[in-house]
């Protein structure tokens, strides 16, 4: 019995560890994009529609994961400090005055890696397991 409990406890812990690991996302741009770092507020400005340009003036196209996917939840919680409902409320305030549309969402990490890898103006985020040579990780201060 105790060993069984222990096993359950271990697998719970494993689950927890793996979900935490899954939830670790990094911000990426195309390797052709010279951008090396952004402040948290610059990142928030890009993802909340306050600007459509990188700090160097080049046009920026942010892309999202699907709403409520683990990467989406982790990104908005850890980098922007916002819940999905807050993000939705923010965009509903902008959309209905014609002041912008939220970033396009892509179906999975592979699609996101492909899109960002092929577009010098794109910025996205993904689980670091999906990093490849076409992408550059952006340091967030």
């Amino acid at each position, binding site marked *: 019995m105790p060993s069984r409990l222990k096993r359950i406890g271990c697998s719970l812990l494993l689950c927890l560890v793996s979900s935490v690991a899954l939830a670790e996302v990094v911000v990426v741009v195309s390797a052709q994009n010279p951008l090396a770092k952004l402040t948290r*507020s610059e990142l928030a*400005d890009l993802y909340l529609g*306050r*600007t*459509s*340009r990188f700090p160097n003036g080049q*046009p920026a196209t942010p892309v999202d994961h699907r*709403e*409520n996917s683990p990467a989406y939840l982790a990104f908005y919680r850890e980098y922007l*400090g*916002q*819940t*999905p*409902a*807050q993000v*939705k*409320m923010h965009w*509903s*305030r902008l*959309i*209905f*005055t*014609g*002041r912008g*549309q939220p970033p396009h969402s892509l179906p999975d990490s592979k699609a996101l890696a492909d899109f960002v890898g092929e577009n010098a103006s794109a910025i996205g985020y993904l689980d670091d397991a999906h990093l490849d040579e076409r992408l550059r990780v952006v340091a967030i201060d």
Partner: protein
Amino acid sequence: MSKKQSFSVLVSLILMWGYTTAVHAGTPSLSLNGFGTLGVVHSDEDQAAFVSNIFAPRGAGHSSDWSAEVDSRLGLQLTADFTPRFSSVVQLVTEQRYDGSYEPTIEWANVRFDATPDFSLRAGRVVLPIFMNAEYRKVGYALPWVRPPQEVYKTIPVSNIDGIDISYRHRFGEIVNTLRATYGQTHAEFPYRDLNGDLTSGDSESREGVTIGNNVEWGDLRLFAAYSQFRLTIEEFNPFFDIYRFYGPRGEAIADRYDVDDKRFEVVSLGASFDRGDWFVMGEWTQTESRTFLADSRGWYVTGGYRAGAITPYITYAKQHIQSSTSSPGLAQPGTEELDAILNSFLSHQPQQTSLSLGARWDVAPNLALKAQLDHIDHEDGSHGYLVNPQPGFEPGGSVNLFSLALDFVF
């Protein structure tokens, strides 16, 4: 009516023209979005009706103690990006209109040109940026409450103008400042009871409207200030004041002081909000001034809420007070008693009230929120507050309790 139709046809043509040219440019995008509210309100005052705004004749209270017509509405919006710099928005809203119908009206219909990413011009039917939450005042999902606090938002019930709008965004380090100026005109039909008590409609017309609003965003803090002035005419009241004009210079003076015939109307409003994510506080203050029988009033509210997971309980305290006199001696000469009494009823019935609201928002799903709200409204002596259609048994200066349920959605 035909003017409105030709306007919408013109906008559709611009849209179609823009869309076809954009297809060739290879960068078009069309987005359809919608919002809406299904809401019911119960009022415990059965001698008058609580309505969403002065443009709606029916509400909760007198004719039905529960009403689904106060807060329910549906909005559809088509946004077209023709090129990165040139876009257009058309938004249709259906809600109870002045004649009790639900015919959709054009809320926004404008074309926008971004001269730079931070400097844009819009022409057509554009937002009137008079309050901090004015741009999405009809989008229940975007608001913490069932409806915006009436002590501020009902003072200027108009949400759009036909004209132009200039917006300039500038950043100072972490501060984003957005300055907006609009110029244009608007007219709105409203229901009212004539001297015989029959329901009819009037037309209020605002011309030469200039509104300047400034918005500062600094992290979780948002500050707002706006000034607006326009020339207001409500033709339906002119015949009444013309009677005063028959009585010579003293009558003229009364008519000039109180009529609504091309009179300058000024509005100042301030707002602040601080949103930490798990809690927020927000407040607005507004003042209106004119030389009409419509009172010079000050209204304000403070509200706060706490987000406990998907549930956000909130509390709001609001007050509206009249600065100008709520009575007039009138002509006070033999034969003018009835005339003076009507003038005084116009003045004394202006909204003066305080209200306390308690509510909770439940974010059921990412695009669906359910809200429940209790309002306790105290009318000051002699005031009807914002209640309409008072019956002979209605006593001004009383209090009214409302219970509201609303389901807000966006898509």
